[in-house]
């Protein structure tokens, strides 16, 4: 049984094939990284997995269940949470509030019980709060708990977004460029957290990342794509040494 697998996924926008017949498998408890030049289709693959885009052909299975045609809002309750490249937090709400929204799929109250704020709702809220505090402790966000997102620096927002994904109690997280826009220290912290997510929380990670030192530090396997097609797949070292990948990044060697 494969934990997560994408088989021959393709997507077309008009005449452009943004992702062309890409297949890959992800093992449970591993960190899988997708690399490639700008516009290669990495984020598009994420948007396909989280069902924001409908794919043209192919099949996605997660824990042996077909999730190719799942409605967008149900993906997360299957255990796949994600972050966004350009941070999509709820700007006019506090960090705590954002993290609590991560608990949404575990909130079982109805509209009427919410209107009256029945004791059952209160009990559930306290339980969610406890879970959120675990994540706050894990990511060292205590200091920012009651601050509005719009007042936070970029690096902290990235971490809050990661925290929000963790609050959903996922089996797998999709991290879209977790280290983009972070300074060297913050990137190192992020590497530790990604590693902890795998080792301490046992959550599988698929990420898109440009920072090659971060990629080779944490990844178990790497997939390189360009123009929507697979260039190479293997361990970080294998992929970095692959001539096709070098060609895609640096261009062809001009032999005189």
């Amino acid at each position, binding site marked *: 049984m494969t934990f997560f697998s994408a088989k021959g996924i393709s997507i077309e926008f008009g005449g452009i094939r943004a992702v062309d017949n890409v297949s890959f498998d992800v093992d449970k408890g591993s960190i899988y990284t997708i690399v490639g030049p700008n516009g290669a289709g990495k*984020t598009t693959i994420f*948007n396909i997995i*989280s069902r*924001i*885009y409908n794919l043209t052909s192919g099949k996605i299975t997660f824990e042996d269940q077909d999730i190719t045609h799942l*409605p*967008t*809002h*149900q*993906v*997360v*309750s299957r255990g796949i*949470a*994600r972050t*966004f*490249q*350009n*941070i*999509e*937090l*709820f*700007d*006019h*709400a506090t960090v*705590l*509030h954002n993290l*609590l*929204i*991560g608990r*949404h*799929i575990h*909130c079982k*109250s109805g*509209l009427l019980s*919410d*209107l*009256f*704020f029945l004791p059952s*709702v*209160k009990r559930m*809220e*306290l339980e969610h*709060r*406890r879970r959120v*505090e675990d994540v706050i402790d894990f990511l060292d966000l205590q200091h920012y708990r009651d601050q509005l997102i*719009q007042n936070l620096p*970029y690096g902290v927002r990235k971490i809050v977004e990661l925290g*929000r994904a963790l609050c*959903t109690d996922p089996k797998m997280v999709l991290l879209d460029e977790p280290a983009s826009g972070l300074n060297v220290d913050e990137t190192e912290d992020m590497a530790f957290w990604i590693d902890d997510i795998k080792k301490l929380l046992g959550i599988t990670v698929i990420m898109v990342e440009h920072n090659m030192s971060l990629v080779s530090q944490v990844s178990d396997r790497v997939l390189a794509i360009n123009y929507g097609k697979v260039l190479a797949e293997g361990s970080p070292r294998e992929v970095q040494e692959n001539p096709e990948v070098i060609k895609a990044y640096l261009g062809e060697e001009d032999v005189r």
Partner: protein
Amino acid sequence: MRFIFKTSYLQDIRLLKHNGYVFWYGLLLIAILLAPLLLDEFYIGEMAFIFIYAIAGLGLMIPVGFTGLPSLGHAAFMAIGAYTNAYLLSSGYSFLLSVALAGIISSLVGGLIAVPLKRMTGIYFAIATLAFAIIVEEIIVHWESVTGGLGGLAVDYPVILGFEMGETWQFYFICLIVLLLVLLGTLNLIRSPSGRAFIAIRDSEISAESMGINLSYYKIKSFAISGLFTGLAGALFAHRLAYLAPDAFNFLLSIQLLMMVVVGGLGTVHGAILGAIFVGLLPQAIAIAKDYLPPFIGEFPGLEPGLFGVILVLFIVFEPMGLYGRWIKFKLFLEMFPLYRKATFKRQKSYLKTERVQ
């Protein structure tokens, strides 16, 4: 400046966060309860009117302020509530039942109308709600057997358990009780999962959806609740008017309601209340000002709607956070004095959200 030492998660859930809240809101409630003893009947009537506006304002704040669905058609829900109440009263239903049914029917209509609207956002949503309001107005004009058409419909006095509630102070307390219930419902809603989902949808639909929030379902929910509250306001409004005619629920009322939430402060419960006070007092202020203005301005036709528009624009340009935002700034100024800096609330350019998936 007050520092709150938190020792329990319950402190973040409680409605009255600390003793300061208990004291000031308690004082306000006592003042409101004693008002009928101290004030002239005219002022009590006007306060009851403000309560009705506040109920409608809370009803509109839920879609506009919390869910981010701009509605230009909330006069329709007021109308549905008002006519349902008046019709049921004239058919012999008791007051309590007919007000409750007015709210429920308005809520059902709100939920139904949200079904086709749920995929729209922004200006298209606003136009669709505007169309809905015009349709409702036309239905009222033409469905004469129920609404009395252009001839209008008389509204009976509310009767509760055999007691006729014809006095102004009695109506005042009826409005106050409904307002308090609606206020409590709104506060409960925004501290519960449903309210959080509304706010999530407002701030980023794409992100809300990938957090597992079913957008259509919550937009319908938001409109159903809004319909309920606004319908209740409409039912009480019917008693205030005493005689219903379709032109009481025209486009101007929708604009007035929208102005209330924008001027009060979008996305806050205080905003709906402050906006209601503002909109409730504005016609009085205009009436008083008319006496002091030269006749060619004071007697100018359409002065009131014109002023509404000007005020709305001025608030959007200069104080998008509304009256409540102004109050927060003033409070911070007092707390920080003399260290307050004007730049604290300066609007900053935020990070561009490029590549946003629509």
